[in-house]
């Protein structure tokens, strides 16, 4: 009951936050010189000033900023994200076409990264100071310091060009007409390399965080008590230390979800993964105001929801945390 009220209250808080974010996005984007009409004129090679003005009028970019802002807010409140200036299609359509691919990639990468990172972190912490700990720590650092686009290209060269095991890019075999299970398998094959590239970076983060967190918990009195009771090290690690040490990892996972867009731009680029990351990057370069605002809006909602889930998970992991 408490939890239900907590969720309801948090959702109510979301509204002003989202509006504030939308306002800030809108104002920030005004700082960049040039607009979508400029970009389209540039792409066309030789657009007359009349044509540029005509486009600006069509897009509503000739109105004063405050008018544009209130028009935008008005539309937003009715959940209308408007039309992309460059692509001339509804922003909602453009986002919905790309969202599933990004969610699939990010979820796979995050699940793999958290699972693997946590396992490695626990292993390193249990053998703190010994060779396994050193190997894991050094590897984690190396992977963390490796640029994702480079790692991605190397994986392509190795597994796609050299061994010819996996496709070099895309989300599915083009024009294969596959459906159902064969399509799922096809997508899975295409997912391996990008999810690995993206996941490895996060594995490193989670492994280091989990190790540090486990070591901290190991120093607490209740672990000493557990040892004094004569419990096995395995039991101490998994039953007593693990759940407590997991809290920071969950917090980070929630924050990382905010990277849903930013973090995947490079990987989506290298692997031609048809996700949101690439869309936001192009939209920024093309001054596609409505599209950018739409993506930022959706991503801020996603981040807020992710944080809500994190808050709820706290209570599950540590029953002492009560949502009031």
């Amino acid at each position, binding site marked *: 009951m408490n939890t239900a009220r907590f969720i309801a209250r948090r959702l109510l808080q979301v509204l002003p936050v989202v509006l504030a974010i939308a306002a800030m996005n809108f104002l920030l984007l005004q700082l960049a010189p040039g607009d979508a009409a400029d*970009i389209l004129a540039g792409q*066309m*090679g030789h*657009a007359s000033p009349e*044509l540029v003005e005509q486009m600006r009028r069509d897009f509503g970019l000739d109105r004063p900023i405050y008018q544009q802002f209130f028009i935008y807010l008005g539309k937003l409140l009715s959940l209308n994200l408007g039309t992309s200036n460059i692509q001339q299609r509804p922003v909602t359509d453009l986002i919905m076409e790309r969202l599933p691919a990004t969610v699939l990639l990010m979820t796979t990468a995050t699940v793999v990264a958290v699972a693997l990172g946590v396992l490695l972190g626990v292993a390193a912490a249990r053998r703190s100071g010994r060779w396994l700990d050193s190997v894991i720590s050094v590897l984690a650092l190396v992977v963390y310091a490796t640029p994702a686009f480079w790692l991605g290209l190397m994986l392509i060269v190795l597994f796609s060009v050299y061994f010819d095991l996996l496709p*070099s890019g895309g989300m599915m075999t083009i024009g294969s007409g596959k459906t159902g299970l064969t399509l799922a398998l096809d997508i899975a094959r295409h997912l391996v390399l990008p999810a690995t590239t993206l996941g490895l970076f996060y594995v490193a983060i989670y492994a280091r965080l989990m190790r540090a967190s486990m070591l901290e918990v190991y120093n607490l009195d209740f672990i000493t008590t557990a040892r004094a009771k004569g419990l096995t090290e395995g039991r101490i690690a998994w039953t007593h230390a693990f759940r407590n040490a997991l809290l920071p990892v969950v917090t980070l996972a929630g924050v990382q979800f905010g990277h849903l867009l930013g973090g995947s731009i490079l990987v989506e680029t290298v692997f031609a993964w048809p996700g949101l990351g*690439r869309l936001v990057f192009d939209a920024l370069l093309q001054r596609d105001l409505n599209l950018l605002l739409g993506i930022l809006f959706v991503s801020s909602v996603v981040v807020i929801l992710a944080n809500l889930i994190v808050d709820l998970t706290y209570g599950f992991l540590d029953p002492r945390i009560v949502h009031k």
Partner: protein
Amino acid sequence: MRRVKMRLVWATAFALAIGVTAAQAQQPKRGGTLTYTFHPEPVAISTIATTAVPVALAATKVYESLLEYEGPGLEPKPGLAESWTVSPDRLTYTFRLRDGVKWHDGKPFTSEDVKFSIESIVRPFHSRGRTYFGEVTAIETPDPRTVVFKLKTPVPYFLKAFQAGESPIMPRHGFTEDEISGNRIRQAKIMQQPIGTGPFKLKEWQRGSHIIFERNPDYWKAGRPYLDQLVLRVLPDGAARAIAVEKGEVDLAPMSALPPAEMQRLSKLPNLVSSEQGSEALGPLMWLEINMREKPLSDVRVRQAISMAIDREKLVDVIWYGNGKPSRGPIVSGNPVHFDKTLKPFEYNVQKANRLLDEAGYPRAAGNVRFKLTQNFLPYGEEWVRQAEYIRQELGKIGIQVETQSVDMGGWLRRIYTDWNYDFTSNFTHNYVDPTIGAQRAFTSDNIRKGASFSNSMDYRNPRVDELFNKAAALDDGPERNQAWKELQAILREEMPVIFLIEIGYTNIWNKRVHGLLTNGISMYSGWDGVWVE
């Protein structure tokens, strides 16, 4: 060596295209898929939405115009029009349309579609629509198979305007009344779901991933196209595009779709062909645009000195990996008709450059610096950054201290063409099939217009240049017109409102299993109905 090889490829392709059976030429095969890659993804499939390269590449396979073209200089051939006549005063063009042509949705193609396309779509919305059809006073359709264009004054390149990318014929019934009357042409549904008459029709468009075009079974050329399918793979990363071509996953990377370093590497592979041919009628040209409004750049000697300080050969070889050649003026050397073949390469002479600057009254002061300039560059990729770095370094040698500013495309266009707030910038333009279309807009004084992109941002004013361009715009090709071009090329080379740098080549790289790609000076913007794969 490479150039010789390319010429052979070109010649063979040409022989095929015009039906001469060379001994080693193979018989075209029907069937198969051609996959090409380009980035960015097209935003629409119609050059009315925008004439950006990815859009033109895709749209020209789906839409056609009245004519087709042969050779680098674009000799007109029948297309949707099977014949045409021109009145002696060159003010009336009558086209006889082909019978039995159908739109991709099965409806018949008529003269009304042509009138509608040119009047309501191309002229007002295509970026060069007013250039081609600004002089048209009336378009008459006496019957469904006849179209008559009435002109106010003669237009020398009128018969070259009917390219699929420049004057696409679109179906009247493809637009709703609301889209036409509400001025929502660019938002029209047909921009995303094209209905053309061309050899291919849209089958599937998975955004961010690929587009599949399939054979138009009712295409008016019997037995064409040869290909079953044409696939565009959207690969955003340059290195990944190169790997896909190298691996054979992709058959073709058109219009310099790969990073220059990768193009150089791939051009040496035995299974691939690399060629700069096939874009002659686009006439790509790169120069440094100079803001002549203030000193010291208002002094012609300073501009000449800058020109002499830059080694164009080195620029081509080092920065552009051998892609392109030094420029020789406002008209590209590949233009078979209008380029003055007697023009010499620009001089590279640092000593003379220093002397010119001394004469202009800019002695070296503290730190060996004569004066400072700000440089912008076109934000098209890392080669442009490196070129800016090279120019900064070379101008430093003659005592010009250059500060480079980096802005993205939106900022660049604003700064150069709306604010005129720059000293000099690299720029990339096209001659197109006639210098009146591509070159005039950069140099005549009536093109000094705030907000007009790729116009005379330099504030260059020369009444003789205006006069010559206007004269050439009204003459048909011939000795008198060529004399005007010759004088123009000489004046612009001398006065240097821009520093002509290089003719960047559009390099096409394709797998050897692909045949019939090079057919004319706009090969990549042609319908590819004669392209086939082994």
